[in-house]
Structures are given as structure tokens and as C-alpha cells.
């Protein structure tokens, strides 16, 4: 069987030789024009004048477009129709596109874009959570509130109570390949778009709206992305639509890519949150009642903020049973970039808060935080349900965390850390084990569908297409493995082709970790259809049941006969049997009412746990991750090598979010961290000194593709173990609970240490 093999990425050979093409590498036809946006310099204002004469007169400029020049829809939002491609009278954040320059070269377009003279009547800008709350500036009419039982009453009668607040910073995606798109005009006004997007169907939809075309007039192709992480779920719309509109206006191919600084200034990031909690608990640390208040900074447009904020609420419990619970979520509208999807989609923010609660409870009880976590884990027997009423029937978190504690030697190392701290005044160590339970499925239930298209050619080669996009996660290889396994052939026979809206329509974004689950099943359905036709053909010839036809090792056996795969395919072709099929899959058993906060939004949960040990320099605030051990549940892995890569990479990215990756806006709403020289993502030296990653060996209990589990997002939350380990190290410096915010930068850590010793910095 071809599944469960640790094969490298499908394009491995292309990557190491520099032959793998990304959008900006595709040879552009002669005459291709290049685009750049002119951007708003103010956070909120009414445009009172636009002098673009100098822009039009600049060398190489072919056209300059404003909102008034757009032929049809001026909208690049993923749904709410609140996000114009070009500002229509009012600007809502620093960096909002106002006009579009079309020029002979990229440089000419960018240079000309700087020559626009825009005058504004500045309006009050809401930049912070507090400002937005005070102004009641929000999406949806009021807060979403989900609850079970009576949290306030349970807290009131609980033996102990604490409360606290945590600030959780946002995160820049910093996909190494910036946003890019290319539009090629076709006859009859149609257009073909190449886009670096996780969501080709949405690009198709928005381009069609912008050109006044039916969706059938637009074809979108995506071979690969140089990283996405959620940042290319909706944020590529503007570039693709701009290219399409400019191509229509000029009749020439148009290409657009953001330079890094523009990319960081224009596009949305992970939502930052402030989460307050009040929890009542007993002397063992068991939660009796808990209240969370989520304040979510969504930026200026709705984008995907509602499902992001929902998912944060859906993960307020993480792996813990919360008997009486109330979660209140405010989705605040601010004059900043429109925050968007980012790996975990709100889940990490919800989870980090409840991990803070567990840590805080343990500190008040002077207990090992792992004991408190274990006291609250969902039971394995399926007797408990989530705050939103979904029964947790697949909980393995107790066993998984116990096994990790053992394999990582957690208890002995915790003692060693305490001994170290007792004798070392400057360098303090900390250790923490944090769990993850992550819900798998889009919470907008209808998105949980996928399609595939499989052709087998006369020579036995297989052409595979599906709705998922490849951004480095290894989806194409996994799905190819599924196809090869279905036909019982070697994977080299399967040709993976670019995602193409002309081949598989109406796809969902490659997001929510769903890529393999959905597209793997759709491919399997298509393969099964063709295989069934082949089996029936041979069964008829050999007077047996189709089930007695076996496909394995590039051969097909039936009765006493043994054919090569090519022979069977050739036979089918000459017998006029269709060797092409579509496949379709929809996730079963989902029902979800997001207003009530009740139902079964997830098909299953993915689990995992991480132990991190850190060392903190208490004189400077610098820290290092000494060792991290992760045990992660991917069900029966489709490809252990790719899965381990996802786990390692997710952890490092999560640790970056909570340590060095700090976004800073000034009081005018300008993003100050808009380049890699000011925004610090993890480098090679930032990974743990010792890094052990293992996969849990149980199959998925839900009926997924070969019993595997989704792996894109869940490992991101393992980075939380680093923040909690840092908290443990700071706790060793004094009596108080450190209450670290994220990201715990060196200066924040130093300040926390100084508070412990009674000397503010």
C-alpha cells in the first residue's frame, strides 16, 4: 500500500534544483503589465482630493484606476461585501489601497504609485481594543455569548476563585513568497488567473464579480504557494481582481506582487485578543465554573473574523471539561488591517487562555501544573461534552499526556529544574507540559465538501486533480498516495497537476487543516469509481464477483489471471469503458448553530501534547528553548515524514508567535513592524536545542481517509508549552504568579522578573 509511507514532497526534486515555479516565476508573455497600489496614509479619513496627474505622467505608466473606473463590483471581501478593492471615498486603515497603477515594469508602477497626492479630512481612528469598546465599534450587533449551566453561581460556591487578564498579540504570516497574481485575457472577455491563493474558487468568484462575468468565464489555476498559513485564504483577492480589471482595461496580461513592506502593511494578520477569566475551583484544581471574556481586534473589515472569533470560543475549553461555563466574545472593529485567517484560526488564542488558567490555578495551589491539567482532562469514556454540547467521544488526551510525561522524563526533569533554580541566581529554568485538543471541520458546515477529477490514460498513467492547494504542507503527495493506493500502483504513475477551477469546481479553501481529509476522500471516491468499472469488466470476463479482482503492486489479479495495470487499462479502453471520473465527498454528521453555540461542529478532534524546557537570563530577559518533546495524534498517518514536518514547523511557528513575533502600531495606526528587520520570525538557531517529535500510534475513530487525522493546525498550539515554561522560569524568581502576556519578548520577561523581586525596571 502506498499510504503510510514517508515519501518526500511531490516537488522535492524541483525545489532542490530551483525549478519549482511560483506565480512570479511563470514566464510572462511579452507586453505584460505590472501593477502597484497607491495606499492610504491615514488610519481613518474621508478622501477630499486625489491628484493623480503626476502618477499618470510618470515614465512607463499605462493606466491609473480609481474606484470610479471599476466596471462592476468594487469588492474583494470574502463575503460581507465591505471591502472595496479601491477605497470609495473613505479610508479605514493606513495601507488601504486607493488607486491602482498599471505600468510597463514593476518598478515603474511602484515609483509612480508614490507620486499620488491624496488629501483627507481625517476622522477619529479607533486603533485599540479599548477605543473600539468605548465607541461600541463592532461586527455583529452585540457580543456572542455561549454558556452551559450557571458559571457565576458555580464560581461563587467554589472553594477557591481567581481572575486574570491576558493580552495575546497578533502574528504576521510572513509566507516567504509574497502575495502574487497574474491575469491573462482570453477571447470573448474571459480571463485566466494564476494566483498564489489557498482559495481558487473565491478568486474565481471575486474576479467574476469584478468583471461582470459568470464564474464560467474565469479560470483560476494554482500550482503551489511559497507558504500560506491562512494568509492566502482571502488576502490574495485584491491582487487577482486588480490584475483582472487591469487586463480587461488594457487588453494586456497583468501581473501584481506586493513587495514585502507593502505585503505587511496591506494584508491582514492573526487577530490579537484580550481574554479575561474568572474561575472557581476546588483544592485539587478542578474547575467548577469559569467565565471568559474575549475581546477580539478584528480590524476594519469583517473578512473571516466571525468564524475566527467563534473558533476561539470553541477552543476555550481546549482539552478540559468545564462543567459550568460562560464565554462572551466581542468582535471589535478598528482602523487597522483587517485581521484574517492564520493557522489555528482563533483556536490558539482560545486555548492559550485556558492554559493560562490551568497554570494560574496550579500556582495558587502550589501544585505541579500537569496535575491540575490532568485533573481537568476530558474523560476517555465519552461521558462529557464540550461547552457547546458536543460529546467528546474520542478523548485520548489523558493517556497521551501520561505517555509523553513518561517518554520526556517530565517529573524527574521538573525536579532537576527546581534544583537548578535553587542554586543558580541568574539563569532560571522552567518546564511545562501543555495539551491540545483541536476540532476538525470548517465551522461553516457547508464548506466541508470537496471534489476530485481522475483520468487514467491509455498508457496507464494517471492524472490527478482535486480542489486542494499545495502550500508546502504536502497535500499533493498525500493525495497522490491515496490515488496510487486505490489503484494498487506505484506513486510514480500518478501525475499531480495544478489546482484548477476548470477541472474541479466549487471548492472550499485549503484551510481548517481539512486538505487531506476532504480531498483525499474525494480522490478516493473518483479512484473507486474507475476501479469499480475495471473490476466489473474483468469480473465479467472471468465469471466472478468484482470484489474478487485485486489491484496491487502495479498488477491486477482475478481468478488465476494476472495482468499488468497497463494491460487492464488498454483492455478497458478498447472495450470503451470510461477511464475518467469525478469524486465528491462531504463530511458526515455535522450540525451547528453558531448563534446558540450548540451542536456538533466538528467531525472529530485531533490531540497532542508538548513538553518544553527553557532557560531564562534574569538579567537581560533573553531565553532559549533547551528541549521540546512532542507527542502528536495524526491518527493512522498517511505520510509520517510529512506529518512530522508539520508538527515541527507548527510548533516553531507557535513558539515564535508567543515569544519574538511582536507587531507594533504607532498612535497614528501605522504598522511599525513591516519588514523582517523589525519583525522577528524564528531562525535556525531558535528551534529547541533538543527536539523530539513522535506520532501517537492510534487510528482515528472517525471514518476518515485511511483513518488519518488532519495535521496542519493542531501542532501550532504546542508552542504554548514554551510560554508556560517561561512563566515557570519567571515564577522561580519570586512569590507571584507571573501572568505573562504574549509575546513574551525579552523586555517583557525582564520586567516580569523585576516585578518578582520588587524592582520595577
Amino acid at each position: 500500500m502506498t499510504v503510510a509511507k514517508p515519501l518526500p514532497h511531490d516537488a522535492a526534486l524541483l525545489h532542490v534544483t530551483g525549478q519549482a515555479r511560483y506565480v512570479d516565476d511563470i514566464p510572462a508573455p511579452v507586453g505584460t503589465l505590472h501593477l502597484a497600489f497607491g495606499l492610504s496614509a491615514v488610519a481613518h479619513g474621508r478622501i477630499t482630493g486625489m491628484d493623480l496627474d503626476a502618477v499618470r505622467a510618470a515614465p512607463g505608466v499605462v493606466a491609473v484606476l480609481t474606484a470610479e473606473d471599476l466596471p462592476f463590483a468594487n469588492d474583494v471581501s470574502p463575503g460581507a461585501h465591505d471591502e472595496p478593492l479601491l477605497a470609495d471615498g473613505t479610508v479605514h486603515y493606513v495601507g488601504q489601497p486607493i488607486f491602482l497603477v498599471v505600468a510597463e515594469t514593476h518598478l515603474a508602477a511602484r515609483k509612480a504609485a508614490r507620486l499620488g497626492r491624496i488629501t483627507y479630512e481625517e476622522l477619529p481612528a479607533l486603533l485599540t481594543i479599548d477605543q473600539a469598546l468605548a465607541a461600541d465599534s463592532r461586527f455583529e450587533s452585540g457580543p456572542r455569548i455561549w454558556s452551559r449551566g450557571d458559571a457565576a453561581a458555580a464560581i461563587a460556591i467554589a472553594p477557591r476563585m481567581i481572575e486574570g487578564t491576558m493580552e495575546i498579540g497578533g502574528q504576521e504570516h510572513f509566507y516567504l513568497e509574497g502575495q502574487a497574481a497574474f491575469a491573462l485575457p482570453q477571447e470573448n472577455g474571459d480571463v485566466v488567473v494564476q494566483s498564489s491563493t489557498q482559495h481558487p474558487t473565491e478568486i474565481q468568484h471575486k474576479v467574476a464579480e469584478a468583471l461582470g462575468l459568470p464564474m464560467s468565464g474565469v479560470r483560476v489555476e494554482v500550482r503551489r504557494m511559497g507558504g500560506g498559513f491562512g494568509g492566502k485564504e482571502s488576502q490574495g483577492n485584491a491582487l487577482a481582481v486588480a490584475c483582472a480589471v487591469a487586463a480587461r482595461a488594457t487588453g494586456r496580461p497583468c501581473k501584481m506582487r506586493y513587495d514585502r513592506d507593502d505585503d505587511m502593511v496591506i494584508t491582514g494578520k492573526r487577530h490579537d485578543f484580550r481574554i479575561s477569566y474568572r474561575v472557581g475551583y476546588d483544592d485539587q484544581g478542578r474547575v467548577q465554573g469559569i467565565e471568559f471574556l474575549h475581546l477580539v481586534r478584528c480590524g476594519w473589515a469583517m473578512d473571516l473574523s466571525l468564524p475566527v472569533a467563534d473558533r476561539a470560543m470553541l477552543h476555550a475549553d481546549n482539552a478540559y471539561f468545564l462543567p459550568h461555563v460562560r464565554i462572551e466574545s466581542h468582535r471589535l472593529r478598528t482602523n487597522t488591517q483587517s485581521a484574517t485567517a492564520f493557522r489555528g484560526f482563533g483556536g490558539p488564542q482560545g486555548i492559550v487562555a485556558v492554559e493560562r488558567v490551568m497554570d494560574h490555578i496550579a500556582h495558587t495551589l502550589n501544585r505541579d501544573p500537569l496535575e491540575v491539567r490532568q485533573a481537568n482532562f476530558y474523560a476517555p469514556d465519552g461521558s462529557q461534552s464540550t461547552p457547546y454540547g458536543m460529546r467528546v467521544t474520542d478523548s485520548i488526551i489523558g493517556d497521551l499526556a501520561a505517555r509523553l510525561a513518561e517518554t520526556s522524563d517530565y517529573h524527574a526533569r521538573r525536579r532537576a529544574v527546581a534544583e537548578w533554580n535553587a542554586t543558580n541566581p541568574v539563569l532560571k529554568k522552567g518546564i511545562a507540559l501543555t495539551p491540545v485538543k483541536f476540532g476538525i471541520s470548517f465551522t461553516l458546515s457547508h464548506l466541508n465538501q470537496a471534489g476530485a477529477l481522475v483520468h487514467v490514460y491509455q498508457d496507464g498513467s494517471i492524472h490527478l486533480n482535486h480542489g486542494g492547494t499545495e502550500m508546502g504542507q504536502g497535500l499533493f503527495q498525500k493525495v497522490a498516495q491515496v490515488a496510487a493506493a486505490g489503484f494498487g500502483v506505484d506513486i510514480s504513475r500518478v501525475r499531480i497537476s495544478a489546482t484548477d477551477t476548470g477541472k474541479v469546481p466549487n471548492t472550499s479553501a485549503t484551510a481548517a487543516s481539512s486538505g487531506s481529509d476532504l480531498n483525499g476522500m474525494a480522490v478516493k471516491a473518483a479512484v473507486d469509481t474507475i476501479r469499480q468499472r475495471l473490476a466489473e469488466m474483468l469480473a465479467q470476463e472471468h465469471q466472478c464477483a468484482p470484489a474478487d479482482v485485486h489491484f496491487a503492486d502495479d498488477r491486477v489479479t482475478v481468478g488465476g489471471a494476472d495482468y499488468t495495470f497497463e494491460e487492464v487499462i488498454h483492455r478497458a479502453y478498447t472495450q470503451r469503458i470510461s477511464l475518467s471520473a469525478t469524486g465528491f465527498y462531504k463530511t458526515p454528521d455535522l450540525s451547528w448553530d453558531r448563534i446558540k453555540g450548540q451542536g456538533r461542529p466538528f467531525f472529530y478532534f485531533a490531540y497532542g501534547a508538548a513538553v518544553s524546557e527553557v532557560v531564562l537570563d534574569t538579567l537581560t530577559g533573553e531565553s532559549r528553548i533547551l528541549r521540546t518533546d512532542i507527542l502528536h495524534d495524526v491518527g493512522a498517518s498517511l505520510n509520517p515524514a510529512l506529518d512530522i514536518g508539520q508538527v515541527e514547523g507548527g510548533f516553531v511557528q507557535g513558539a515564535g508567535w508567543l515569544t519574538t513575533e511582536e507587531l507594533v502600531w504607532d498612535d497614528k495606526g501605522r504598522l511599525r513592524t513591516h519588514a523582517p528587520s523589525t519583525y522577528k520570525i524564528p531562525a535556525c538557531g531558535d528551534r529547541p536545542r533538543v527536539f523530539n517529535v513522535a506520532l501517537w500510534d492510534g487510528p482515528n475513530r472517525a471514518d476518515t481517509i485511511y483513518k488519518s487525522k488532519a495535521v496542519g493546525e493542531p501542532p501550532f498550539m504546542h508552542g504554548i508549552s514554551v510560554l508556560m515554561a517561561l512563566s515557570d522560569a519567571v515564577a522561580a524568581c519570586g512569590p507571584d504568579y507571573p501572568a505573562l502576556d504574549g509575546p513574551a519578548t525579552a523586555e517583557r520577561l525582564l520586567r516580569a522578573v523585576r516585578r518578582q523581586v520588587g524592582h520595577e525596571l
Partner: protein
Amino acid sequence: MNITLRVNGESHDLDLDPRVSLLDALRHHLHLTGTKKGCDHGQCGACTVLLNGRRINACLTLACMHDGDDITTIEGIGADGLTPLQQAFIEHDGFQCGYCTPGQICSAVGMAEELRQGWPSHVTDDLTADPELTRDEIAERMSGNLCRCSCYPGIVNAIRQSLGEQA
């Protein structure tokens, strides 16, 4: 202005605006798109190429500064069959999205040569001794090449393996 760039052993006569970075000259004028533009500010390493055997950021230098210089890009590495380093990157999953990979490989080639010639790094304890190939040593020597997918374990393992094979 007119310059001659020797890229991957082949001479190219180019008439370039002096403002054109070496990176843009490679990508736009020579259509060698293996060298990637990640940040264009010398901070991410995606555009790492070898200049007379030493690694540099192609975005932080102008093409006109390199008249007559020898430049090696990813297209010039393993052109006649994969090098052990490239094979090791495949074997150890030294990438996910692949966008940083050409830069990582060029940088690792440059690093191997620097090691061979005994160039120190600041984690080398004794500056006059032969640097050892610890993980920290490789991390420092590869510090200029970012990978947002964070495939660092695979990258380091691939480099260690290929250097071991060379030794």
C-alpha cells in the same frame, strides 16, 4: 551600462540600468527564477547566491558591481546530477513550501566551503581552531536563511549529513 556577468559558468553581456540589483538581473534579465525574492532587504536569505564562491544576498548588491565576477545560482548546482547536499535535503525533508530552498542550498554550499577554508563563526569557541559541526554551529552559520515553514530540523540534518559525507 554594459557589464559581463559569468553565471553558472556562462558569460552574459548585459546592458543594465545601474540600479538593477543582482537579484533582478538574474530573475528578469537572465530568466533564472530559481533565486527567490523573499524580502528584497537582505534579511531573509531567499536570494542567496555564490559570488566567486562566497555566499551573498543577491538583493543587497547591484549587478553593475559584479562586472566580470563569477556567480553561481541554484540552477548551477547539481545541473549534472544532484549533489549529495541536494539529495540530503530531499531525504531529510529540508523544506515544505520550498520557497527558501534554493537560498538554503546555495548558503549551505557556501558554508561548506567556508568551513573547508577554516572561516570562523562567533559560536566557534576557539577562534583559531577548526570549527566543529555542532548543531549550534550550523544554526549560526545558517542564521541568514529564514524558513517560515520552520523546517530547520530537516535543513540542519541534511547539511550535517552532506558535510559528513564530504569529510
